[in-house]
């Protein structure tokens, strides 16, 4: 409570223009932040239906609100070991360029506002390697948060998922801050 009260106070005290809303999720022991605007919704995952000839990081497909979307295992995508799906596992449903993809993460339980000015670029040693996924790092209440850039996750290099999503025509969904 003592940690949350100042955060809540900061949420209310900070003007919306200065901060951007982020969803925080956990993956392989690290906390990532992704812009709330990029997330369509979060879903609990019960079972993933495997599909043949799927790319290495794709576990299969799930049906979300009547729509079948591919499930990209971010652990596999980032080169970590897969873990079993549990009660806290979440699916970040992202819609971009008419494609909707579910990213499977260990858990996603927090909503936070982060000043973009406080986001530091990634360290030199890893920029060349992970720069396409990582926008930078930020400190949030003493925690180091990796700010994720979803763009490259949708690139053909990062995700060899050739088939265009069938229901990619949901209009006005390209939100921004």
């Amino acid at each position, binding site marked *: 409570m003592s940690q949350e009260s100042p955060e809540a106070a900061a949420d209310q005290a900070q003007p*919306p223009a200065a901060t951007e809303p982020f969803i925080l999720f956990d993956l392989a022991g690290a906390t990532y932040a992704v812009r709330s605007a990029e997330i369509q919704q979060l879903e609990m995952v019960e079972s993933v239906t495997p599909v043949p000839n799927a790319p290495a990081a794709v576990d299969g497909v799930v049906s979300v609100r009547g729509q079948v979307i591919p499930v990209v295992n971010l652990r596999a995508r980032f080169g970590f070991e897969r873990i079993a799906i549990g009660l806290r596992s979440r699916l970040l449903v992202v819609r971009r360029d008419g494609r909707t993809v579910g990213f499977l993460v260990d858990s996603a339980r927090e909503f936070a506002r982060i000043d973009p000015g406080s986001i530091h670029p990634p360290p030199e040693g890893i920029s060349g390697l992970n720069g396409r996924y990582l926008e930078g790092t930020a400190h949030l209440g003493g925690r180091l948060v990796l700010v994720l850039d979803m763009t490259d996750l949708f690139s053909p290099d990062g995700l060899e998922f050739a088939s265009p999503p069938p229901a990619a025509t949901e209009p006005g969904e390209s939100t921004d801050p």
Partner: protein
Amino acid sequence: MSFLTRWGGNGAGDAGSVRVDAARLLGVADEATQAASLQDERAAAQLRRVDAAAARAGEVVRSLGESADQAGEVATAAEQLASSANEMAASIEEITATAANLAASVAETGAAVEESSRSIQQVAATAGEMATAAEEVSAGTVQMAASVKSVAGDTDALSTSVAQLAASVEETSRSTEALAGNADDLAAAAEQSLSSINEMAASIEQAQASAAATAAAVEQVSVSVEETARSVQGVAQNAEVIAASVATAASGAKQLEASIRDAAASAAQAADVTGRLSRDAEEGGAAVEKSIQGLSRVRTSMAQSASVVREMGKRSADISGIVDTINLIAERTNLLSLNASIEAARAGDAGRGFAVVAEEIRHLADRSARATAEIGAIIRGLQEVVQDAVEQASEGQRVADESGRLAEDGLAGLKRILAGIEQSSAHVERIARATEEQGQAARSVVEVVSTAAEQSRQVTAATRDQATALQELVAGSVTMRKSGVQVAAALAEQSRAAREIVKAAQATAGLAGQVRRSATEQAAATTQMTQVVESLRRGAASTSTALAEQSQGAERIAAETGRLTRMIASVSQAMGEQSASAEQIAAAAADMRRQSDQTSRGMAEQARAAAEISTATQSVARQIARVTASNREQTAGARQIQEALAALRESVEAGRAAEVGLDLPERIRLLVRAPAGRQGY
């Protein structure tokens, strides 16, 4: 359980040691049986030997009687010998007298011969003178012719003297014949003395033979006495062996008694221990039964607690399901609040209030999620505890079951141990009773064996006394034998002396024969001399005739005188020869006298020898008297031997009759076997 086993093991060990002692007892009894049978055999052998010794002693007595008879015979023979020796001495004295006579006559003969010799020498001298005269005659033949008448007268005188000579020679011849007769008498007397000496030698040899017979009898007696002594020594050794085996039996019986006493003590100890053991086992059984009851209660309560814990585990699982549900609800609430926040952010300012609500909802959901997580952790810990409790309860139940089974096994074992202890205490009581009986029996065995040892010692001592008496008897017989040997030696010396006497007598006879022969030769020489004197007389006669013829023819006188001279020379020679013969005769007579002297000395020696014979015979008689006396002593000793042997036999029979022999070990064996049969379980 371990202490019961230990005590049980010790009881078994004591019983085992009792068994071992009993077996040893049995072995000792068998040994005693063997020793007793051996003793019995030896007693029988001893009895047989005593019988044999008694028979031999009887033989000894009989042979002693025989030897006494023989000694009497010997005494008689010795007396005969003494009388014959006396006779012989008398005859020798006669011979001596005769020999003295002979010597005297020989001396006379010698004197006569000397006289004849002298006369012969005179004759020779006369013949020499005659030869001178004849030479003178021859030289003065012419003158002689004138004095032939006177020569004739001289010749007549010569003739007369020759006749005298012839007469003296004839006298000599007669005396020589008398000498020859005396020599014959001497030879006869020597023969007589020889035969009587031979008789004496024969009687001495007889005496020697009887003395040898006596010595042989004494030897026999000695040998049989030595045999008796040896057999008595054998009896003594056997008695000592018996004594030793009886002593061994006594020590064995004492060991037996001591071991039985030990066995009794250990049996009493075992009874004591068994009683304590029985009480301990009963107490242990009660304790085990109590523990079995306690264990069954423990098992029941364990089972109850296990079921309670299982129930609790089931409940906690229920709680865990509820917590999961709450957790799921919390997660969903969180998800919905996040989605609401996303929507509110997308709505911009319009969604600000909604975002706050969503924020609050997310906080509540997080708090409930944290609470449910804590509850879940608690529940999980509780479930682990419950699982542990269930496992421990079932383990405890298993342990309790096992303990119950083990306690029941222990109880059964204790019951068996109690039964075994009762049995073993009964056995121990029986062992104690049997050992007490064995102890009494062993004490009586020890007493009996001690009595047997005492008797055996007495037998040994008596046998040793017998042996000593027999040794003395042996020594006496040795002395007897020695005196017999001395008698035999004395008799042998007598015999040798008699043989020497015989030889001397034979030599005397030979000498007498020589005397006779030389006398005969002398007679022959005298006869020749007589013949020569006769021829001389005839020559003198023819000289007379020739002188008569001389007176008739004067021319032939010279030749005749030469012939006469030659004749006278030959006469002179003959006279020389005659003189030599006479000298020989004289020498012979001297020899004869010497011989006679020797004869006389030999006879004196004979007389001395006869006296010695008489003395020796008397000593023989004395020896024989001693032999007879010792014979009597021997007889008495042999009777003592017989009596001692009879006593020995009685004592041996008494020993057998006292059933010290075969009956004793049989009793030991019965005594030993009875307890041994009782304690075998």
